[in-house]
């Protein structure tokens, strides 16, 4: 029974994994196929599973529908700028929450956990009014500053820092290492898988974010890629699904690349966390 049972279980597991994988891959595949179709082929029923002739022109139409180079640049500045700011604030915050005992620590940590639970839709109006007073609406600052302190990042890093054995830090202190040095040269490298995972989550979130940039910006010069893509969609009348999907391909491509390279670290991070 043992061997047969295990083998049967393996087969079932593979089938299940394949099924789940298919569920995740299918939308991407459909987007890819649709991006290369002609409009009549998009509407065709039963649908075709492979484009009859490859319409690369869809990408050209999507790209030239607006200042896409500006959008891509803005998206990069916002996603990376946010990420850097989050690290600069998150690492010291997480280190102090994990390694120091000070008055009000639990309360402060509790406050940052509360921040984790409030979606941006709830607070956008007061933040908008505040940024408007500072004259930052319709600038890239409005897309970066409100996300500078990431509660999620602080929480994740704190957990990682807490798992570093005390001996390591004590040894460093005996060698006269400054707290600053311990934080950046010992703790941060040890938490690398967590940092990469968090970085990826943050990057994807801000790269894809539609709601916040839409609310905070009015002009094309400071807008990001998702808004450019949404402009491909007409309110009434025929939607050019093939061009919209071509635009979406442009949007997801960088994320797929980043994900591809960071995959190993992500798996590490989850294994690390569950230890």
């Amino acid at each position: 029974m043992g061997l047969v049972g295990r083998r049967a279980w393996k087969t079932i597991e593979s089938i299940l994994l394949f099924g789940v994988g298919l569920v995740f891959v299918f939308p991407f595949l459909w987007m890819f196929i649709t991006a290369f179709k002609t409009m009549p082929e998009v509407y065709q029923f039963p649908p075709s599973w492979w484009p009859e002739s490859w319409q690369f022109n869809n990408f050209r139409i999507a790209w030239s529908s607006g200042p896409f180079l500006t959008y891509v640049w803005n998206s990069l500045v916002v996603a990376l700028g946010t990420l850097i700011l989050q690290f600069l604030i998150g690492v010291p915050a997480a280190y102090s929450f994990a390694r120091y005992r000070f008055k009000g620590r639990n309360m402060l940590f509790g406050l940052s956990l509360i921040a984790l639970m409030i979606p941006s839709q709830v607070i956008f109006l007061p933040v908008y009014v505040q940024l408007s007073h500072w004259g930052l609406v319709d600038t890239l600052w409005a897309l970066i500053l409100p996300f500078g302190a990431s509660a999620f990042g602080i929480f994740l890093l704190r957990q990682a820092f807490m798992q570093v054995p005390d001996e390591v830090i004590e040894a460093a202190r005996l060698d006269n290492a400054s707290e600053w040095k311990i934080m950046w040269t010992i703790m941060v490298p040890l938490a690398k898988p967590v940092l990469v995972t968090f970085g990826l989550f943050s990057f994807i979130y801000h790269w894809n974010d539609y709601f916040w940039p839409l609310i905070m910006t009015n002009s094309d010069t400071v807008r990001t890629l998702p808004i450019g893509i949404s402009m491909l969609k007409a309110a009434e009348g025929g939607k050019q699904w093939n061009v919209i999907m071509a635009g979406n391909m442009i949007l997801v491509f960088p994320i797929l690349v980043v994900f591809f390279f960071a995959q190993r670290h992500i798996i590490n991070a989850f294994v690390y966390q569950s230890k």
Partner: protein
Amino acid sequence: MKKVKASLLACAFGLTAVLAGCGGSQQASGNNQSPANTSGSTPTGASAPASNKPVEIDFWYALGGRNGEIIQEMVKNFNESQKDVVVKASYQGSYYENHSKVLAAVSAGNQPDVTMVEVGSIGAFADAKVLEELEPYTNGAEKKYIPGLLGNSYWKDKLYAIPFNRSTPLLYLNRDMLKAAGLDPEGPKTWEELRQYAKTLTKKEGDKTATYGFSTAIDIWFYEALVFQSGGSILTEDNKALAINSEAGKAPIEFWTSMLKEGIMKAPPGEKYNAWDVAKQDFLNGQVGMIFTSTGDLRGLKENAKFDVGAAFMPANKSYGAPTGGANLVILAKSSDEKKKAAWEFVNWMTDTAQTVPFSLESGYMPVTTEAVESAEMKAAYEKEPNFQVAVKQLEYASPRPMVPGYKELQEVIMTEIQRAVLGQATVDEALQKADEKGQKLLKK
């Protein structure tokens, strides 16, 4: 360790570079704003400012795709056509996203001067005192617009909005299919005829239905149309309660339900506009013979259909009838007087015959002035493509959409209830009773 330090330093530099980048683009956009024309403007007319600098106004629009590009082009032409006003146009998402943005911007005090508002929301905006009353600016200019399109421009007898991109629901026909079945290719004129046509066009293969005669999304817009056709209205005259718990309110649901039961109508699956897309796709693939959809779809359907597409009035019950849709242009009350005057110049120009004719021809929306409908250019286009004229002709029977402040929420309630009735989860009476109760609460606010 040195490596880490170096990379941190790089990070810090990176950050400065990024931040500098922000500042840069902010400045850049500031430079863009500085008007190109500082000399040569003539201080004549109402819009001329005290100085020689042109007045700059912000225009927020809510159309993506090709129609958005057409609007950008129109704004460019306006800016080049005169020297007193410079319009900065920017896209703000869908009607509803723009709606939220404008409200947020008004509370923060950095609202645009002109924007597009979906016709059903005009009342909510006007009631909140966000909109500028337009009669002091128009000097009677509102008479040039087609009366059937002005229904959603007034709130408490005051003019607040000018029709811009306007649509109305129509019956679309697969003329080839109708001809093949020996039916009049002009389509059914009454509900009973629609039922007969749908029956004739429906084809069964064994247990499965290969072709449905008729399909429509169970959507509030079409429900409004059928209520109007039955001689009813959605709200009571004082706008204080729903008027659909009546014969005219029941008739559309009973009509749809009976056709669904007969198997000659398909209710397309999907939430909101997804159901519309399914209906259009089925129509293009010859799986349904007739659908309800917007005038705005005519161009797209014609381009992608392999058969002769026809557009017709929505069939009559007691009479013809249809709501209108799309959006109007409004001026915001919070802008400065100088900007409001400039904004009116712009609104007037955008909706004038010289602009609305090409806009209509390119976008598929209806022209908004009576003069435009009579123009040689429009007449030539109608001759070539009679389908385009159907919507304008149907305007004679059009009614405004309900526009009380609570209707945006209420229409979701009505839609849910009629869908429940159509799906057989509730009787028609139960559903309308429930909608009525919820309506009372929402309209009292």
